[in-house]
């Protein structure tokens, strides 16, 4: 009898817990960066609310762990992170302090999006900090390859369906639609970039390996001597020499870096500084994942035309 009572209680509890998410009309998703937010929005449609912690014009390595972010996190059903230690300096304490069991690492509402993407620059030998602020798990700037955008969107759609089974079909439909639009857009981007296949560029930080791989750019050097280490005079001179030898005419810089060194490099090599956007929201009108590539590719093709 007692067993049966316990069973009933368990069933009732199970019913309460299982119906709880179904009652919540919209899934509350918080993402670490705007790119993950944009992809979640694509597949989540109007069945989710999405908010990003970092802004698109902010260096994602150096976000401050502001308590106001805890207010967002404590309500979240799902936390989507870029992973690969990009957020290691600020996200772990926020997750711990959020008091939200759903989004703790390993819980069902924690999604490390890097598991879906093709990751480059995974160190094969021993890693030391003499290499600068290296990411021992690989380069975390993987969202700048549209193929990875598709993979991550698919992964997020799957996760959303898992958390909200009633809408799983809807999320899959949204993904199929996104997939189609992305394929069309990709054809245009690929065509726009095709004439510049193999062009040499220099970037400020090593944040473009996936972009370069997809669009066939050849990154020959970085303004930073090592990841996370600000430019030094000797390295800058070396880089100028390299760019002259290799006839490299493009310096790509994220909006949150100082333009002084890139500008002086450009002045001495006849190169153009391209202030590209690494993330959605870097400029006001770059509001989704498609516009991010539209913006960057327009900038790049213009610069390539001007320099050759």
């Amino acid at each position, binding site marked *: 009898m007692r067993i049966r009572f316990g069973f009933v209680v368990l069933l009732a509890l199970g019913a309460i817990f299982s119906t709880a998410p179904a009652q919540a009309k919209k899934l509350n998703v918080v993402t670490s960066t705007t790119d993950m937010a944009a992809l979640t929005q694509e597949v989540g449609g109007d069945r989710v609310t999405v908010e990003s912690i970092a802004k698109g014009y902010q260096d994602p390595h*150096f976000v401050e762990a502001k308590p106001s972010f805890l207010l967002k996190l404590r309500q979240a059903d799902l936390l989507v992170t870029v992973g690969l230690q990009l957020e290691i300096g600020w996200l772990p304490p926020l997750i711990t302090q959020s*008091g939200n069991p759903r989004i703790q690492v390993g819980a069902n509402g924690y999604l490390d999006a890097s598991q879906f*993407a093709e990751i480059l620059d995974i160190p094969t030998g021993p890693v030391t900090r003499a290499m600068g602020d290296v990411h021992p798990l690989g380069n975390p700037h993987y969202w700048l390859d549209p193929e990875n955008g598709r993979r991550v969107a698919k992964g997020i759609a799957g996760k959303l369906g898992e958390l909200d089974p009633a809408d799983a079909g809807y999320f899959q439909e949204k993904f199929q639609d996104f997939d189609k639009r992305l394929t069309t857009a990709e054809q245009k981007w690929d065509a726009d970039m095709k004439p510049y296949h193999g062009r040499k560029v220099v970037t400020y930080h090593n944040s473009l390996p996936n972009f370069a791989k997809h669009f066939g750019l050849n990154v020959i050097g970085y303004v930073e001597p090592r990841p996370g280490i600000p430019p030094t005079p000797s390295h800058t001179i070396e880089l100028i020499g390299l760019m002259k030898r290799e006839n490299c005419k493009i310096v790509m810089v994220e909006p949150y870096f100082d333009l002084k060194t890139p500008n002086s490099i450009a002045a001495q090599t006849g190169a153009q500084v391209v202030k590209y956007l690494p993330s959605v929201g870097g400029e006001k009108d770059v509001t989704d994942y498609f516009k991010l590539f539209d913006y960057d590719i327009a900038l790049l093709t213009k610069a390539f035309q001007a320099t050759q």
Partner: protein
Amino acid sequence: MKNLITWAGVAMLFTIPLVAQPSNTPSPQNPPDSSAMEQRIKDLEERIIALEGQVRMLKATPAAAPAQPAAVSGPTAAQAQVAVPPPAPTPAEAPPVAPGALPVYGGASASAKALNPDISVIGDFIGKAGGNSVQPTPSLEMHESEVGFQAIIDPYARGDFFISFGESGVNLEEGYITFTALPAGIVAKVGKMRSAFGKVNMMHNHVLPWVDRPLVTNNLVGGEDGIDDAGVSISRIIPAPKGLFLEATGQVFRGDSGTDDSPVFHASRDSDVSAVAHLRSYADINESTNIDIGLSYARGHNELGTDFLTQLYGIDATLRWKPLRRSIYHSFVGRGEFIWSQRQQVPTEQRAFGFYTSADYQLGRRWFLGGRYDLSDRSRFANLTDKGGSLVLTYWPSEFSQIRGQYRHTSYADNISANELFMQVIFSLGAHGAHPF
């Protein structure tokens, strides 16, 4: 098991093309459909990427099961092929295999290391010129070597240990478990920890913007270690009007804090526990500027005995500015902490007050300039007031080291003044810690 999964994965990668080949061989009448072929390759690529991701995740998640001795020999190809059909690897108890990801230095198996906590060591070296007869410090000192072990314990908790090695002697600075999955948004900590009394009391030496701690910490709140005790802490975010963050923290400790020179609490009996309460409010003024105001209260028994109480009241305020578009180049932090101490002793209760105000401005990516003004009565002799001022310049070669110079002038109550010049080098090894906020 994970070994097996990896092998299975590798085997799968090799077997798929093998299986696929016969059907792909172009028969004379059927010319190869290159687009279908391309699609096949693409699908294959997708599967590899998905598989790589799964392997990365498996490596990263700690398995709950006890570590088993490394597999005697890798599974044979035949075994692996048997394992191919179920494409989704079954999550199972096994030591993760980490080829490539974790360098093996000592010959220990990589799988054993994958479960290790994040380990960090932070060195804090201080050199000094100038004399100070009231608070003497050595001329050259490896002030502290702080070893940190941090890991997620299970889906419900994480653990943090900070063990501080002086040149002689070891001190458990903090060691606690944090329960992160409690109901009702409660976060609980159990262990030894720096209490939530104000701002500076929570900070480890290496995250302070100065070489030393303010006079008010030394005179009223127990010196370098401050209120740092074994006990239980419970905190929760309190619902507040939109845009305002409120968090309440309540802590109960054994009741032993401070040093012989700077005692705060002392438990003469088991029931002489101390308690700390903290209310933190925070608001974003705009995306670059925010304000953080805290109220603190601490109560405990002092070294004179069970009948003698010490109570501390504190207000802290911090204004931060950091423009997001230039966040790595410029920032400003202005801070003040005001503390009142009420200490029962013979012949009369002593009511002391002290505060510091400080400002730190980031000049460039690597340079910080700061200043601090100090004033504090002494807890046992409230009529004696010490004053001081400091000027600080910090250089960060990278995120993992800093070099700091500080000039400090102090006018002690007994008409003794001291001028000192400090030089500090802080360097951190190992796991990337969180940036202080």
